[in-house]
Every structure is written in structure tokens, then in C-alpha cells.
């Protein structure tokens, strides 16, 4: 359009330079005067149209820079005046003493109020100035690359007022702001609107060099520094004065306050920074102190189950890096400590009672085991509760707790046995005191302990033993409960783990069918019927935990031997190719005994029956010596002693021993106790536990487990090698460990021995080139 410049009426370009200057000066005078009027809040007398046209013409006539500089000068002048006449007189009494002379910071508040007014006036004026200089902004400022007039106003305000070179406005402003915040931290009421106005002002002003807000460059760092210092002091003070729960409440409150403060009158960008400071000064620095506070720290909270406090600690400490780690390790240590104590009471009890927690229903062992498991379960319950109520079920905490439980449970080498005994106890007595649901929930909890056991194969062995006893002695409370338990184990360890257990159940079921058939067989047969009721349970030798190949010797009474023979014929007739071995050590018998007072039905073990039947042939008062009984019955010595003890030294004394005493010794004499009385007609003779023998059993169990492990390890090796054909030593070891660890932790030395055994038996060979590599031989 400039190329077509033509006369344009009123805005025709001036012809003479001096007249143009004159016109500019004239126009500018009027405009400057108008700006002054705006500053005096007299804008109502001004005409927008004229002023706009005025500025428009100046810019149109290339006087944009003159106009711009002129405006800058007028505004600067005005702001200087404002500084002197309004801001400086409002300075609070000199900084340091002001808080003393004005305890409520009134001077400071007033200063902020004045500043707020000054700022509001300035922005209002600048908006109006921007209106009339709209054309200058659009055309001149853009081409000359200078700030728009409103931004120019902000810069001028920043340099003339906020960062005045002539007056210490900035110092006062920062000091007053920090002082106001400090007052608020000390629970004084301050006028937040004034503070907010100043903060907003600082946020609107930009620092020329950093291009960041003046808030960020001038205020924020100072604020953070003073806050750091403030909370450093406060942290030390609080730690000294308050107990842990109170301390945490204070910290919670502080965090909350700072968050509110930021929300109400600071910049959101400050929020994470001030939060970090409070967290650092009040949490990180005092983590350990608070955790370890005597009588109120983490451990006392756990001991007294202060869930609220624990929850608060969890939340607070989660804010800082090390917080949860410290908590976790403190709690884990505590669990280990408690676990150790539980383990210790058990070992001290066992030694004190002279009993041994070996297999079976021996009183001392079982009660210790049950108590141990119960205590561990209680502990687990307690920490589950903590986890649930205070720790939001935090997975990391759960893992660390589990590790702690695993640690101390496996510290007790008897734990697999104890847990099995505990289950035994529940499945045996179960319904007497508890409902089925209760038993079920107890067993569920027990399973969680089972998970912690490293040596699951040891547990399996004990479980089999206990299950066998329950099944054979008919002690199991219910089939459903038993099956339920096996189901749970199956879920934990898989099919392989429970097949044998299920096999045992199967044997029991088939046996009961077999017995029905046997009775029919007897009814139909022409054979002489046995003089007693024989009930046989046929067990598959591989499923059951007894050493079935070596049948214990025992001379059974002839009637019984005969009955056994009849059954054997019957059974082998149906299943050819099977072999039956009689386990006289596992049986029970109901016999009737006539005493002086009355007749009693005695439920005894097979061995006890054999012993008692010997006295049938004897006269009153005639005694049998230990050696006689031993020779005639051929019962293994250990079993014999135990059974004699049950008959002569326990609650029901069917036999009388000479000399009296708890122990059975060679040379002892035994008499039938004709004077025996008991309130009940039916009497069950318990078999007494014997410590020496149980220790032996333990060892035996251990050995059996070791033996089983050898087989399992070899099986695993062969399985892997069959699949891979060739494999390096370390990789093979790692793979074997991986496969077996759900049952037990095999040690590498054991695996190595098994590999060598397999090489010897030519399942494997060492590779010709590399002796650390094995090949599979098909």
C-alpha cells in the first residue's frame, strides 16, 4: 500500500519536517498529560478516540520510538514518585526489631497492604495505557522488537519498585513475606490476602536474565532456605520433646500446613520443594530416632498394636526414600526376635520335660509342637493384622515379613514335624471343641506356615506318618477334613506331593470293601469260622511310611494266626501275585478283661493284647518276668518296653510291676492287676512315648529323608539330561536346584555326588573335550 501513497485527507504525511516535529510535540504533550491523568485516576475526562488517534498518528508518522520512550519515561517517573510517596513511608520499622515491636507483624502487614494497592493501581493504569496505545503495540512494538506496553509497565515496576536501586524495597518485601509466613507457622493469624497479593505480583514479574518469574529468582530460594532452617530447629526440638506418635502427628500437621500454605498464597511450583524440605528435616533426619524411640517407637507400637500410629508412620515414612526400608528392617528384626523367643521356649521346654517332639501322639512332644505352632500362628495373625490395618497391605512389607517368618521357622529344625503334629492334633481332636469352619480356618493358617518351610519333603514324611496313624487307628475326625487338608497341600505343592497321601486314602477305602467281601466269604465258606472278628487293612507298601519289607517279629496267639491265615487265603485268591506282610505293630484289639470289681472292655494295641493274653493261662498272683514275656512274644525290645509301660505305669494299671517305678528294666516282674477299677466300662490304653526311642526315630526319619532326597536328586538330574542331552556342570546344578527347591534346598555337594553316582552307573558321561560338560547316555 505504501507504493500507492496518495493524499489521504486528514492523515496526509506532513510536508515540512519542523511542522511534523511540532505536531509530534503537540500530540505527545497531550498524550503524556493524559497518562498522568490516568495515573491520577482522572481518566473519566479523557477521550479514548482522541488519544488512540493521537498515538496512531505518531506511529503512522514513524514516531513510534519517540512515543515508546516517552511513555517509558512518564511511567518511570510516576513509579519513582510512588516509591517515595507511598512505598517508602510504609516500610515496617527496621527489619530485625520489627517482630519485637510489632509482635503480630502489623507493620509488615501494612507494608504489604500498601504494596498491594500500589500494584493494583499500576496494573489498572497500565491496562488503560495499553488501550490507548493499542496501535503502537500492534505495529511499532512488533517491528521494533520491544516488549508490549503492558509488559514494559511490568518491567518498569520490577526495576523501579520491587528491585528499586534507590530504596531497599526488595529487602523489606522479602523480609516481611518471610516474617509473615513464620508468624503463621507459629499459629499467628495473618492476613493472607495481602501476602497473596505480593506473591502474585512477584509471580507476574519476569526476571530479565533468567526469563523466570521474580518469585522464583528473588523469593523462592530465600523461602526454602528459611524453611529448611526453621524445620531443622523444629525437628530437633520435637524429637526431644515428644514421643513417637505425637511427633508424627506434628509432622503430619506441618506437612498439611505447608501444603495449604502453598495452595493459598504461594506458587504451585514451590509445593514439591517445600514438601521435600519438611520431609527431609522432619522425617528423613529423624527416621531412626523416631523408630527407635523408647516406649513409643515402632516396636512399642507393634507390641501394643497401635494401628493408627503405625498407619501414620507408614504413610509419613513412605514419603522419604529410606523410610519404608527402615521400617521394614526394624519390623523384620522384631519378628525374628519374637520368633527366636518362641523357638527358645520350645527347646527349653522340650529339654526341661525330658520329652521329645517326635512323631506320634506322645503327650509332651505333641503339646510342645502344638504350642509352638499356635504361637507362630498368633504372631502371624498379629502381623497380618498390622499389615492389613496399618500398612495398606504393602507387598514389599509382606515380602520382608515373610522372609522373617521363613527365617525363624526354618531356624527350628523341627518345624516341619511341629506343623504336621499341629495338623494332626487338629484333625484328631478337631470337632471336639471347634466347629468345622474353625478347624478349616486354622488349617488354612497352618498352610501359610507350611509355605515358609524349606524342607517340604521332611514335612511330607511326617505328615504321612501322622496320617497313617490317624487312618489306621481310626483317630481321624472326619474324612472330609482330611481330604480338605490334602486338597490344600495339593494346591500348594502340586499333584506329585499328594499322590501318595491320596493313595493311603484309597487303601483305606478298598480295605473296607475288602472286609465286607471277606465277611461274605466267611459266611458262605465251609471253613471253620475264626473265633474273633478280624479287621484287616491292606496297605500298598509304597504309599505308606512304614518299613514294610522288614516285618516286625511277633508271636501272635494261635487263634489270631489262624484268622490271619484265612484272610491271607481269601485275599491272595482274589489278587494273585501280591504279597501280604502282617504289621503287628500297627494294629489294635478289643479284648474283654474280668477284674474283681467288674468286667472291662479294653482297647489295646496288638502288642498289648499279646502280652495280656499271656496272663490268661496264669493263676492269680502268678507273675511273668520281663525276660519271659520278651522270649514268648518275640516283640522287639523297644516296642515291648513301651507297651509294658503303658500297661503297668500309665493311668490304667492293668498290670502291676515289681519293683515299682516308671522305667521298664530287665528282671522286672509283672502281675495281672485283679483289683483294677475304673469308672468307665470301655477303656482305651494309650501307648506311652519313650524318649530314647523317639530320638532314634527322629534320626531314622532324617536318614529316610536323606535317602529320598538322593533319589529325587538323581531323578531330577536324569530328567534334565534326558531333555538337554548335554549340559555344563554349573548349569545342570542350577537347573536341579530350580526343580527341587519347592521341596527342599539341595546343596551342590549332594548334587555333585549324585552326578558322580550316575556316571558310575553309566547314565551320564563326561564329555571327552571338556570335563565340566556331561553327556546323557540313552
Amino acid at each position, binding site marked *: 500500500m505504501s507504493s500507492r501513497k*496518495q493524499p489521504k*485527507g486528514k492523515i496526509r504525511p506532513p510536508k515540512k519536517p519542523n511542522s511534523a516535529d511540532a505536531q509530534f510535540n503537540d500530540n505527545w504533550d497531550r498524550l503524556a498529560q493524559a497518562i498522568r491523568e490516568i495515573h491520577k485516576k482522572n*481518566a473519566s475526562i*479523557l477521550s479514548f478516540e482522541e488519544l488512540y488517534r493521537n498515538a496512531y498518528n505518531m506511529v503512522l508518522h514513524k514516531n513510534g520510538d519517540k512515543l515508546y520512550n516517552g511513555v517509558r519515561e512518564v511511567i518511570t517517573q510516576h513509579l519513582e514518585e510512588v516509591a517515595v510517596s507511598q512505598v517508602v513511608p510504609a516500610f515496617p520499622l527496621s527489619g530485625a526489631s520489627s517482630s519485637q515491636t510489632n509482635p503480630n507483624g502489623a507493620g509488615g502487614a501494612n507494608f504489604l497492604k500498601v504494596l498491594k494497592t500500589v500494584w493494583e493501581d499500576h496494573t489498572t493504569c497500565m491496562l488503560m495505557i495499553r488501550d490507548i496505545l*493499542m496501535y503502537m503495540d500492534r505495529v511499532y512494538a512488533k517491528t521494533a522488537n520491544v516488549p508490549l506496553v503492558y509488559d514494559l509497565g511490568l518491567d518498569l515496576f520490577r526495576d523501579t519498585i520491587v528491585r528499586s536501586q534507590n530504596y531497599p524495597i526488595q529487602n523489606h518485601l522479602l523480609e516481611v513475606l518471610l516474617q509473615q509466613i513464620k508468624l503463621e507457622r507459629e499459629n499467628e493469624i495473618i492476613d493472607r490476602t495481602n501476602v497473596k497479593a505480593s506473591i502474585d505480583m512477584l509471580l507476574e514479574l519476569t526476571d530479565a536474565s533468567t526469563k523466570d518469574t521474580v518469585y522464583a529468582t528473588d523469593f523462592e530460594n530465600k523461602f526454602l532456605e528459611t524453611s529448611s532452617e526453621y524445620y531443622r530447629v523444629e525437628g530437633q526440638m520435637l524429637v526431644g520433646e515428644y514421643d513417637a506418635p505425637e511427633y508424627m502427628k506434628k509432622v503430619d500437621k506441618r506437612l498439611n500446613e505447608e501444603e495449604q500454605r502453598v495452595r493459598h498464597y504461594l506458587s504451585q511450583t514451590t509445593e514439591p520443594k517445600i514438601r521435600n524440605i519438611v520431609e527431609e528435616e522432619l522425617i528423613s533426619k529423624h527416621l531412626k530416632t523416631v523408630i527407635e524411640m523408647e516406649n513409643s517407637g515402632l516396636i512399642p507400637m507393634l507390641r501394643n498394636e497401635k494401628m493408627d500410629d503405625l498407619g501414620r508412620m507408614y504413610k509419613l515414612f513412605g514419603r522419604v526414600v529410606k523410610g519404608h526400608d527402615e521400617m521394614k528392617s526394624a519390623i523384620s528384626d522384631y519378628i525374628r526376635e519374637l520368633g527366636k523367643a518362641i523357638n527358645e521356649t520350645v527347646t527349653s521346654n522340650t529339654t526341661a520335660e525330658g520329652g521329645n517332639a517326635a512323631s506320634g501322639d506322645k503327650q509332651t512332644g505333641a503339646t510342645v509342637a502344638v504350642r509352638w505352632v499356635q504361637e507362630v500362628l498368633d504372631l502371624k495373625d498379629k502381623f497380618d493384622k498390622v499389615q492389613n490395618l496399618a500398612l495398606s497391605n504393602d507387598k514389599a512389607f509382606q515380602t520382608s515379613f515373610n522372609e522373617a517368618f521363613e527365617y525363624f521357622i526354618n531356624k527350628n529344625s523341627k518345624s516341619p514335624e511341629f506343623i504336621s503334629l499341629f495338623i494332626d492334633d487338629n484333625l484328631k481332636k478337631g470337632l471336639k471343641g471347634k466347629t468345622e469352619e474353625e478347624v478349616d480356618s486354622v488349617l488354612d493358617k497352618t498352610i501359610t506356615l507350611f509355605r515358609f518351610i524349606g524342607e517340604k519333603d521332611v514335612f511330607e514324611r511326617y505328615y504321612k506318618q501322622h496320617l497313617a496313624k490317624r487312618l489306621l487307628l481310626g483317630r481321624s475326625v472326619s474324612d472330609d477334613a482330611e481330604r480338605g487338608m490334602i486338597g490344600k497341600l495339593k494346591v500348594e505343592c502340586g499333584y506329585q506331593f499328594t499322590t501318595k497321601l491320596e493313595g493311603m486314602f484309597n487303601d483305606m477305602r478298598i480295605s473296607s470293601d475288602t472286609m465286607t467281601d471277606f465277611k461274605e466269604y466267611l459266611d458262605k465258606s465251609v471253613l471253620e469260622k475264626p473265633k474273633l472278628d478280624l479287621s484287616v487293612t491292606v496297605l500298598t507298601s509304597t504309599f505308606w511310611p512304614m518299613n514294610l519289607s522288614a516285618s516286625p517279629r511277633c508271636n501272635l496267639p494261635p487263634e489270631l494266626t489262624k484268622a490271619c491265615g484265612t484272610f491271607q487265603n481269601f485275599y491272595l485268591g482274589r489278587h494273585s501275585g501280591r504279597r501280604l506282610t502282617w504289621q503287628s505293630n500297627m494294629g489294635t484289639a478289643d479284648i474283654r478283661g474280668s477284674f474283681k470289681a467288674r468286667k472291662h472292655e479294653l482297647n489295646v494295641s496288638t502288642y498289648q493284647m499279646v502280652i495280656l493274653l499271656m496272663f490268661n493261662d496264669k493263676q492269680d498272683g502268678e507273675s511273668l518276668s520281663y525276660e519271659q514275656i520278651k522270649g514268648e512274644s518275640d516283640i522287639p525290645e523297644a516296642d515291648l518296653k513301651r507297651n509294658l509301660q503303658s500297661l503297668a505305669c500309665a493311668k490304667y494299671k492293668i498290670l502291676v510291676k515289681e519293683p515299682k517305678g516308671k522305667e521298664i528294666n530287665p528282671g522286672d516282674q509283672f502281675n495281672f492287676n485283679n483289683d483294677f477299677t475304673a469308672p468307665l466300662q470301655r477303656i482305651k490304653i494309650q501307648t506311652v512315648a519313650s524318649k530314647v526311642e523317639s530320638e532314634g526315630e527322629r534320626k531314622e526319619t532324617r536318614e529316610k529323608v536323606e535317602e529320598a532326597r538322593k533319589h529325587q536328586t538323581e531323578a531330577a538330574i536324569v530328567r534334565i539330561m534326558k531333555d538337554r542331552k548335554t549340559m555344563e556342570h554349573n548349569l545342570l546344578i542350577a537347573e536341579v536346584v530350580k526343580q527341587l527347591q519347592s521341596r527342599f534346598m539341595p546343596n551342590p555337594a549332594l548334587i555333585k555326588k549324585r552326578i558322580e553316582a550316575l556316571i558310575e552307573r553309566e547314565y551320564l558321561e563326561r564329555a571327552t573335550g571338556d570335563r565340566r560338560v556331561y553327556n546323557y547316555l540313552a
Partner: protein
Amino acid sequence: LTDLSSDFAKLLINGDNHDVIIEAGEGENRREFRVHSLILCTRSTYFRTTLSKNWLRKEKGVIAFKKPNILSNIFEILLKYLYTGLIDLDILQGTDLLRLLVATEELDLQKLNAHIQTHMI
């Protein structure tokens, strides 16, 4: 859209419910337009500013605005454009076209300004 434009054009002509009286031109050329602040403010920054709380001046209860340096016939074209969005440049002579162009520059009507320039080329 043509309906809308013609209805708005009527609004400008009959001045129903006007709240602003604009006096354009000087001397003989002077003429008053009865217009609506709502429409002007919506259509132009210039008018939005001058009719804003800080700057509006009232005479007898109506906002009064004087624009002496723009000829009333040119101003009328501008108003029509602001009301209807339509403008017919072909009926304008060279000088008027130029006057219109200068007026759009002052009143910051940039779209129209650009339109006129392309029309002139």
C-alpha cells in the same frame, strides 16, 4: 447466512434497541448512527476497548462516540461490514476505497484491510 446478514443489516438501519450513538464525520458530512454495543464489541477490538467500562462516555443515558476523522459514508460501509460481514468494493471509487483502507488500518479491522488490499491489486 444471507438471512442473518440481511436481518442484521435491518437492525443497523432501524436502530432498534440501540445503546450507542456514533457521530462520524465533521461539519456537513457529520452523521449519527444508532448502533448496538453488543455487536460492535463482538466484531472489533477497537470498539470493544472504546466501549469498555474505562472509556465509555454517556450523553443522556446513551453511549456517545465521536469519530470525526472518518467520513460518514465510509463509516457507514464499515458499520455495514461489521453488522453483516458483507462488503461490496466494486461500487467504490478509488479515493473512497483508499479512505476505507486507511480507516480499517486505524480501527484495526485487519481482515477487511487485507481484503481491500488484494482487491486493489
